Structure formats: C-alpha cells, structure tokens
C-alpha cells in the first residue's frame, strides 16, 4: 500500500550565530492512510520541526517529503498553499484561534481561504463543530471558551476541509489531565470516524501508549518505539 506521507532522509539545521545546529539528521519514515501515530521525545529534540517539515511549513535542508508520491517542496507557492489548505490540518499546543472571530467564523476560515462562499464555509464549519461537540457554542469568541473548548475549536478548524493528514503538536500540553484526556479521545474517535491519518506529538506517555503506532524522535532520527 502506498504511504500517505513519506519522509526520505530529511535533514534540517539552523544557524545560531556561527554555530550550525543539526535538528534532523536524515529522518526517514512513512505513514499509511488512516494510520495514527504518536511522536514522543525529550524537549527541544526537534519534534515540532519534524512536524513542520512534514506539513510543508518549513523546508528541509536536505532530503524530501512525499505526499501521495508527490514531492511537496517542488511545488510552487500557490500549489503549496492549496496543499496546506486541503490536505493537511494543524493543531498546535496553543489554540491560535483568531480572537476577534467567533468559533464558527474561526472554523469557517479554511473554507473562506479556499474561496467557498460564506454560506458553504459556515455550513461545513457548523457540521464540524457539531462533531467535536461544540454545536451549542457557535457564536462565542475564543476568549469566552474554556481551554478544552478552544482546543476543540482548533481541531474542528484543522479538520473542516476533510484533510487526509492531521498534524497535532502537543494538543493537550496546555490542558489539565481530564480535559487533555477528552481531546485525546476525540482524536482517536475522529481517526476512526473520518479515516484521517494523524501524527500526535505528546509528552504524556499514557496517551502515547494508547496510539496504534508509537514513534520516538532521538538524535535527529525517527524510530518506531
């Protein structure tokens, strides 16, 4: 079976003044469609960078990332934007919702970006907010929602255009244990219901344990734990 996303010998380094810091040193891995994996590793090891490279937010220094067999970093700016819009969803540790917009408008944003009409985008957003269990809080602004609700809205926003890949960077890192548990359950359920492949970065070993596949990032390489 062809993998959904594949990283081939991905190198990534930053320059910190005169010093070159190698974060990824030839990370190689593949994820099948619908597969769900957790990614663990100590702080500062480059988990976020790996996620950004996979999600095309950050180009690798060397190596390539293939999505359904296509090299993502060969795409033109516009194609790349469409790819981010349609094919991947991001959830970050902080919800990063736009504070001036309501939950509904925030979730409708990817649809608006892909130039759907407002009605269409909001209908899809409403549907997705129902799925994450926030159908009753459509018109609340992020500031009026609890931390768990905010993260659910962020999740709905990542998934509203039905991407095939979800990249979650410590989605529960900022939440208390019970709320984090809820988000995790939601992730697993969405994976089952919508068939979305996901990589979830987490510090919580208990949550990581429950994933069908467990990855570990160490010394710039991704290995199955």
């Amino acid at each position, binding site marked *: 079976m062809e993998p959904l996303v594949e990283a081939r010998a991905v190198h990534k380094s930053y320059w910190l003044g005169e010093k070159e810091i190698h974060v990824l040193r030839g990370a190689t891995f593949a994820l099948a469609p619908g597969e769900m994996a957790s990614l663990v590793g100590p702080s500062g090891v480059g988990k976020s960078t790996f996620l*950004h490279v996979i999600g095309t*937010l950050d180009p690798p220094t060397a190596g390539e990332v293939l999505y359904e067999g296509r090299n993502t970093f060969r795409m033109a700016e516009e194609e790349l934007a469409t790819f*981010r819009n349609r094919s991947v969803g991001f959830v*970050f540790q902080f919800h990063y919702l*736009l504070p001036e917009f309501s939950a509904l408008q925030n979730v409708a944003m990817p649809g608006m*970006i892909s130039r759907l009409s407002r009605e269409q985008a909001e209908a899809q957003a409403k549907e997705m907010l129902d799925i994450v269990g926030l159908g009753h809080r459509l018109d609340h602004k992020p500031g009026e929602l609890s931390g768990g609700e905010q993260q659910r809205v962020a999740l709905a926003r990542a998934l509203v255009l039905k991407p095939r890949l979800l990249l979650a960077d410590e989605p529960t890192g900022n939440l208390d244990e019970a709320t984090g548990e809820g988000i995790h359950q939601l992730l697993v359920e969405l994976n089952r219901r919508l068939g979305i492949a996901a990589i979830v970065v987490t510090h919580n070993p208990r949550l990581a344990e429950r994933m069908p596949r467990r990855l570990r990032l160490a010394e710039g390489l991704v290995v199955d734990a």
Partner: protein
Amino acid sequence: MKFRLRVTVAALVLFLLGAGLQYSLAQWLGGATTFSRDAVSAISFGAQGLWFLAAGFALSFLGRGYRPLENLAASLAFGVATFFVLRYLKPPSFSYDRFFASTGELVVWALCAAAASWLLAMWGASFGMLIGANGHPDPRLRYEWGIARTHLRLNRHSAKILLVAFIVPPLLLWWGGQMAWSWDQMRRANAGGSPPTLHLTVRQIVLIAALVVLVVVLVLRFIAARARLAQLKPGQRRKRPATVVMTGISIAGVAVGVWALTVVLSVMSGFESDLKHKILGTNSHALLLKYSTDFSEWRSVIPKVAAVPGVAGVSPFILNEVILSHGQTVTGAELKGIDPATAGAVSELPRQVIAGELRWIASPQDIPGTDRLVEPTGAAAKQLGGPEYEQYLEDTLKRRQSHPEEAQKMDPAALRNLPGICIGKEMSHQLRAWVGDVVNVLTPLGEMTPTGPVPRSRPFRVACILYSGMYEYDSKFVYIGIPEAQKFFRMGDNVVGLELKFTDVDAARALGRRVVAALGGFPYRTKDWAELNRNLFSALKLEKLAMAIILTFIVLVACFNILSTLIMLVLEKTKEISILKSMGARDASVMKIFVVEGLTIGAIGTAMGLLLGYATCSFIEKFGLQLDPDVYYISNLPVNVDGAQFLMVAAISLALSYLATLYPATKASRLSPVDGLREE
C-alpha cells in the same frame, strides 16, 4: 537565464511602445483638437504613465513576480534609447539662453524617463502581485477584508467614533467661524458705541441648548466609562494594542495633509480665477493683428471672422499711448479706441461702468454738464460704497462749485460737442475728474513745425468711470470712440486690429489659429490672452505648483505614518500570519490584507480631510476673510471650490497611501509560516 533575458526584452519593448504612444498622441492632439499646450502634454504624459503601469502589470504576469532587476535593466536601456531619440528630435530647452535642449538637459530627461519607467512599472507590478501574478489570478478579498477589519478594529463601536469624527470637526469649524464672524460684524457695527449685545433667535437658543446637552451627555458617558474601567482588575481590562492608537494617528495625519492641500489649492485657484476674470473683463480673449500698419479692410474682415465657428464676438480697436491732463495733474495712459456698440460682445466693459454711460463716448451731447453730479450706479459701485467714496464725491462737488473755470472757458455749445472719454476709477482719483469734466489728451506724435515737433492735444469730456478691479487697468486705460481715435492719431480708416471673443476661453490659442487660417494666413496673426499676460499666469501657475508639491509632502509624511503603523501591525500579527499560511492562505492574500488596511486608513483620512477642506472653503466663500483692499485690490480672500481639484487631491493621497502599504505588505507576504510559530 534565457527567461530573464526574455522578460527584460519584453519590458524594454513595452517601454518603447509607451514612449511612442506619448509622442504620437501629443502630435495628434496638437493638430486635431483645440486643447491648450499644457492640456496636450498632461494628457499624453498621463497616457504614457498609465501605459507604464499597465506594462508593469503585464510584466508581473510574464515574469511571474516583481522582477525588479529585469525591470531596472530594461529601464536603463530605455533611458539610453530616450537620450538618443531626444538628441535626434531636438526638444526645446527650458533655459532662455538657448533654443534646443543641451546635452546635460537631455541626460536629465533620459534619467527621468528611466526612473519613471522603473517606478511606474514596479507600481504596476504590485497590482499584478496583489491579484496573484505568480500563479492563478484571484482578485477576491472576502476573508482578507474581514481580517483587515479586525486589525483596524473596525466594528460598530469604532464606526460610531469615526462618524462623530467625520461630522463634528467640520461642524465645529463652521460654527466657530460663524460665531467669530458675527462677533466681528457686531463689533464693526458698534464701533466706538456701546458694548455689543447678543440678539438670539429662538432657533439659535434651541441649537445652543441642544449642543450643551449633547456635550454634557458625552462628557458624563466618558466619565462613567473611565470609572467602570478603573473598577476592573488589571487582568480584566482589555488591552488596547499600540497599533490601534497608531492607526488613529495615521488617519489624523492623512486628514490634516489633505485638508491643508485642498484649502491652499482652492485659495490659489481662487486667486487665479479672480485674476483671470478681471483680465478677461477688460481684455478680449485674443487680438487679431496684421503684419502691416494698413488694416483698412477691417470692415470686410469682421463678418469673415464672425463666421468662424467658435468665435462669439468681434470688435475693432485702436491702441496708443497718450498723456492725460486735468487742471494741474498729468498722467500717462493707454488710449484705446473702441466701438461702444460691439465692445460688450468681446469684453465686460459695459458692465464695469460705475458712473455715466459707455455709449456716451459716441454721443457726447448726452453727457451731463458739470452743474450736476452723476451718482455711481451698478453692481461695481455697490462694492465701492463706503464713507471714503462718499467723501470723494462730496469733494468733487465742492471743487466744481469753487472752481467753475473749466466749464466757462468754452462756449456751452462747443463744450457739449466735445467727444467723450471713459476713464478708470483710479485715474479718476488721480486726475480728480468725474463724469462731465473736461480732460486734455496729448499725443507726442504731433505735427512738424518750423520750430520742431509739437505735440497734438485735444479736449475730451469724461463720459463714464470704469471699475475693473485691477489697479493696473483702472489707473491706465482710457477709452474713446473709433472715429475720434482715427481722427486724433490721423490714421485714415485704419484700425490696429480686431478684438475676438471665443466660446471657449481655454481654447483661445487653437481657435485663434483657426481664425487666421480662415483669413488665408499671412499677414494676419492672433495673440491670445494667455500670451498677452504670460508673465502673470506663468508666475501664478508656478506658485500653485510649488504649493502643491510642498503640501503633497505633508501627505507624504502622513503616509510614512501609515507605513510605520503597518510595520508595527505586521510585527504584532506575525503569529496570525503564520496561522493563516498554515491554513493555506496564499502570499498574495496576506499582501492583500495589509494593502487593504493601509488603503482603508488612507481612504478614511482622505475623506475626513476633504470634508474639512470643503467646510473650510465654503466657510471662506460664505463669510469671507477680509484682506486689506489697498494691498491686494481684493476685499475678500477668494476661493474656488473645484470638484476636479478635490478629486485630484484624493487620488494623490490614495496613491501615496497605496505606495506606503507596499513595503510592509510585501514583507508580511514573504514571512515563512514557521516565523510566528517558533516564538512560543
């Protein structure tokens, strides 16, 4: 490499086409239309500028991006080409000591051409980038506008504040001005008398009461809001980012700049149109002259000229310098022989009469004698009214009663048959001559006698007093009938030329050429009013241009405000930009967000400035700012509210605002998605 070369060549070809367009358009307009030379160059260079913009726009699609280097190369090549073409064409020089432009001037021209083509092409390319020239064009900006609105905090609340800011300052300006004006009027009316008392109508009292209530309510609401804020704990207060304050300051900056620009330009063009009105009141639109002293066929020329389309009036004239004397006073003057029946068709002369009648110069028997004083009449006389003028008339009457000798030297019948002469108001003051007085006109072109040349002189009777509003004209020009002038200067049945009036003043030059062509060309020629008063109008135009440039700098500075506000906003919203990009927002969309923001700031500021400018101008127009009439010869500051001028100011201000957005917007669009995500 080949691709970049192709883009460069394409740019060069487009630039050259633009220059060709300008040249051929200027040639065609000059030949086929009646536009003035300024209008022709404005239209043709405007078209060239638009062409360059369009070329840059097209190039951004061809080159898939801004392509600054390729554009620069093409612009330099274009500059070099311009230099050689200009050297071949030999344009006229700006300097007075040479006819054709020198090499140095050509180099400056070529550099200007290169710089203009580069800047305009880059500007045009920015439009291309905005709608996504490097991929699929997408001019929509639905969600971009939504996000820009949140950045600017444009919501119902701020819309209310904006509305107040739109309405209140112009109203205050108007009201304060009106108050000051009526206070001043009261003070003048009661000069030296008892202290002025206020007389208020019921409506005014109601208005003032409403205003007081409004102010009290607003102040109370403000205090209440502050009190509520003070009770909140620090964490509960919504922080207002610095960019919101900066946005307000930017709007105010643009508004002030636009305000100053509109008011000053309106006053300048008020002066210009006042001057034009006065000059064209006394002078015709053009003179038809002949390269010969013999113009005896003028009677047959008049119908031919009148038949030319665009000619509204024709009248013959004679012009010569003379000396005028009355009693002991002597003054130099320009004596103009006119036909009183047709003079009104080419100038405002009949309407400038403030005492007597213009037609009396042809029928001197009707001029009243010195035994009675002709009172000033007409609209011009009303303007002149006032204690000083009444004093002058009183003095005239007393003088006549105490020195009746002038009238008694001649027998009454001969006196009544003396030809009439019309003089200006200032000359009437200088000579102390009023309607009915006898003045002597003396020409140095006299007879030869055995003792040498003797000047010739003739007595005339003052038929009317004229007031044009131009000191120069009122103190210098005197008018007599054509037959009298011919007799006086011994010209036979000759005139100096014909005065022409056209249907369109601004087309005077081209219509003049048409008249000459209709008469068969040489020896006829025309001189239009702009040519006859070139110094005055070119000085005025230069002054206006200088003012416009200086004041545009105010708007420019205001646009730097927009620039820094947007840079701050980009820094503040880096995270948001990253999130939007991770959701798939295109670079062009991010650029659009910030361009729209800058343009909104510019548009709001411009609208406010225009409103303030309009309020100021109409205030000046209605109530007037008084000037010292002895210095300016105008009693009120003139303003000319010209819609086209307001539109031009708005266009300049919006164009500058747009330019100010380009740097921050491009910067924002090039941010990488991880730039804002890494910071946490």
